[in-house]
């Protein structure tokens, strides 16, 4: 399993910088990925990001695969006013229970919260996971499989 880079490490700072550069270049795109647009807001030519940084790629995959009810709960973006404002929320992991906002930050574009969530996850996620010492009963009851529905 890929590990989450330690706080203060150069690798972590590199990942954060690359992620941020990708996200900034995606502002204006009706969609998003962790790649750099050669021309900001234009996906004609993209590079860098997950296609060229294998650690960033794998760390993101591990973050994305996390189950909603594990840890503190999964972070999401919530649009609070169409095409105007966005906030960060956290899934409840229980059906019928809506997400809750995690802070008061309001974003004026839909891409910036992607980066803040990346940084929050770096802080929140266990550095190591998925090894025998992390075994728990949930592994036998499908809690080890990323959900689709």
């Amino acid at each position, binding site marked *: 399993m890929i590990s989450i880079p330690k706080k203060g490490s150069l690798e972590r700072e590199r990942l954060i910088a690359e992620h941020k550069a990708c996200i900034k270049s995606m502002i204006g*795109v009706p969609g998003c990925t962790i790649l750099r647009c050669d021309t900001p807001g234009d996906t*004609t030519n*993209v590079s860098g990001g997950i296609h060229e940084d294998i650690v960033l790629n794998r760390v993101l995959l591990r973050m*994305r695969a*996390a189950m909603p009810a594990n840890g503190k709960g999964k972070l999401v973006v919530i649009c609070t006013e169409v095409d105007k404002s966005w906030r960060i929320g956290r899934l409840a992991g229980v059906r019928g*229970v809506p997400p809750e906002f995690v802070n008061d930050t309001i974003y004026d574009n839909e891409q910036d919260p992607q980066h803040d969530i990346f940084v929050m996850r770096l802080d929140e996620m266990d550095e190591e996971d998925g090894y025998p010492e992390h075994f728990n009963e949930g592994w036998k009851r499908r809690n080890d499989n990323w*959900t689709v529905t």
Partner: protein
Amino acid sequence: MSAMKLTGYADQFGVNPGKKIKFYVNCDGPSEYKVEIMHMVNGDTNPRGPGLLENLVNADCNSTYKGRKQVIHSGSYGFVNDNKHLQLESFTLQCWIWPTTPKTHPKYWRHGAQGLMTKWSDNKGYGLFINEDGFVELRINGEKISTGAPIRDHAWHFVAATYDAETGEAKLYHEPQIQYALDPDIPSVSKKISNGISHTANVPFCVASYTKAIDSNPLAQSSVPAGIIMAGHYNGKIDNPRLCDRALNRQEIETMKLGAQPGLTERRHSGPTGPLSNCIVGSWDFSSGINTIVGHDKGPYLYDLQIVNCPTRAMTGHNFSGQNFDWKHAPTEYGAIHFHDDDVDDARWGVDFEWSVPEGQNSAFYAAKLTTSDGDEDYIPFWVVPEIGKETAKIAVMVPTISYMAYANEHLANNAGGAELLVYRVPIMQDQNMFLSEHREYGGSIYDTHTDGSGLCLSSRLRPILSIRPKYDHFLMQAPWQYPADLHLICWLETMGYEYDVITDEDVSYDGLARLENYNVIITGSHPEHNTGTQLDALHNYTQQGGRLMYMGADAWYWVHSYHPSYENLGRGVITEMRRCESGIRTWRADPGEYYHQGSGELGGMWRYRGRYLHSVAGTGMSSEGFDISSYYSRTYESNDDRVAWAFDGIEYDEKIGNFGFVGGGAAGTELDIVDTMLGSPPHTLVVATSAGRHTEAYLLVMEDFGFNQQGLDGTQHPRVRSDIAFHETPNGGACFAFSSIAYCGSLPWNNCDNNISKLTGNVLDRFMQDGPLPPPPADAYKHRGRADYEPPMNKSSK
């Protein structure tokens, strides 16, 4: 958390001019709301585009209406109205159960006891339950008897309860079908209960719920029976429920498992034995009438259960043997109904207003726009469809309403942890998602699992469908999807000045070729993924007789759908059904033996596995999907072929085609189709442009195209992860043009429709809409072609 105070739906998707359409509105809080019928042109609010475009229609229903709250009483169950035979002094209740959520999280939206077989309300009556601790429980009035043994989820158990009024003895049995080595025994438990059973008049006998209250509140009128509020909706299967009017001993209970035996020859009674036949009140056989919403009683009184909210039938029972997989061939092994607490077949709201659509009203996309002075807003989309024979244009847009229903009220952004591996970023939830995440009673989509985790295979249009809304960006693409994405096409047609009619999947499914044949060209929506067989028949018949088809999207003609026959009295196409079987892109997977539709009896799953290749309909079929960003096309040398070169008039050979757009930022994106002559593309199909090699790692090959997992399946590596724009002729001067990407329509309105995607589409439409057969291809185009057989470039270069 959600601020949505207005929601609503209409009684029809498509309405003919001269007919009425009814609207049902929940206005939760505001005292009044305003109604304006709008002609919808664009629903995408992206600031880089034209923005929301809607035109007020002078409609007789445009007015201000008094607001009232309306609620959905979701959760499936069966019931028999109260009668003297059900007001028992002594009884035996028994059934097989396969519970899916015997114990729920305290915050679960319907945490609490679940009713199995009940005639119980407010501590009066009798009933068999699963209590909130997950134990089987017998209730007699306010007395409760439990085994104290947690019931295993997703496993069959036989449960029974008896009560003898004379002795006061109540007994409860819980007998798992499978006992593992370390499972403790679960002995039956007994308790003396005196004073007999108190009955409340009008409390029905229920299967899979219990009666919470008899309520005169107007909100209770949309429950069934009206005015009776149900609670304790059970999640799981129930098989062979029986109700007798005396306490049977264990041997008699065993015999009663056989139930009523009306099929016996020389029979003189209805029961498995003469003495037992005398005590049967109800012996329900859910293997009978699987395509109905009736739970048939084979006992002497014929107390058929009215089934509410369309639970899933054609489900394997406790005796499924694994020899027959079609319920029609082994019905007795399909005696189970799977009930869910979030099933919904019809919101059953009161009518709030109607619109009498004038004769001559333009066929188009419409919506009833609802607003309040506080800024609340909702739209109820519908379509005005001309009657057959009264078509008003040469062009018809076939609105993919079955696909809209399949995606109706999807919960993936919440349930699935954002399905982030799929979308390759953190999902964005809209107000509609937030509302649905706490209003599970609005039901889910066919992409969701029920609240108990089982696959959701039935979707009703008689409920507010918040995903069919303008201004709604879908979490999958962070952009319009389905309805608002199809408005990109409408925006383009309107801007370019084309006259068009709209027809729906329903219309084509019910009316067949007659619905299509008077048009010169049929234009699809961006993602017509879900289809009935009669619809596909109609499209084939249409193109074979010279009709022209413009397939504007991708991942179409994919899943087998059928409309449930038991709701035809409420209109066409009220409930659609699909099953996710052994292949295809499945957000859930049907269990063994549960592949056949309960409504039509046909095999579900992909049309491909019914021998009906998706590529055969319009020339291309699904190859891959990814939801991060989109890309663009380049022309191939086949675009210069005289058969199709006209489509590129005004477009240079080296142009980047569609490197812009409102869905992912390019015309080639989200879900992609390719030509494959081994999968139904006609051998003479021309690939005129392709996006090969330009997709990201998020794009992956569809699983039905490979037999085992291996590396190299993504858009940066696999050659089949691409979109092919393709053309082929059909007999009698017909043709198909496949644009093969869901994102394609999102590029049409770019730069006020002045772009090369608009140019290409306009060239095709101008040619396809002309009267009479299309010009024949050059004589040398007629030649023998193989499917797999062709001359590889290496052969050519070695000559």
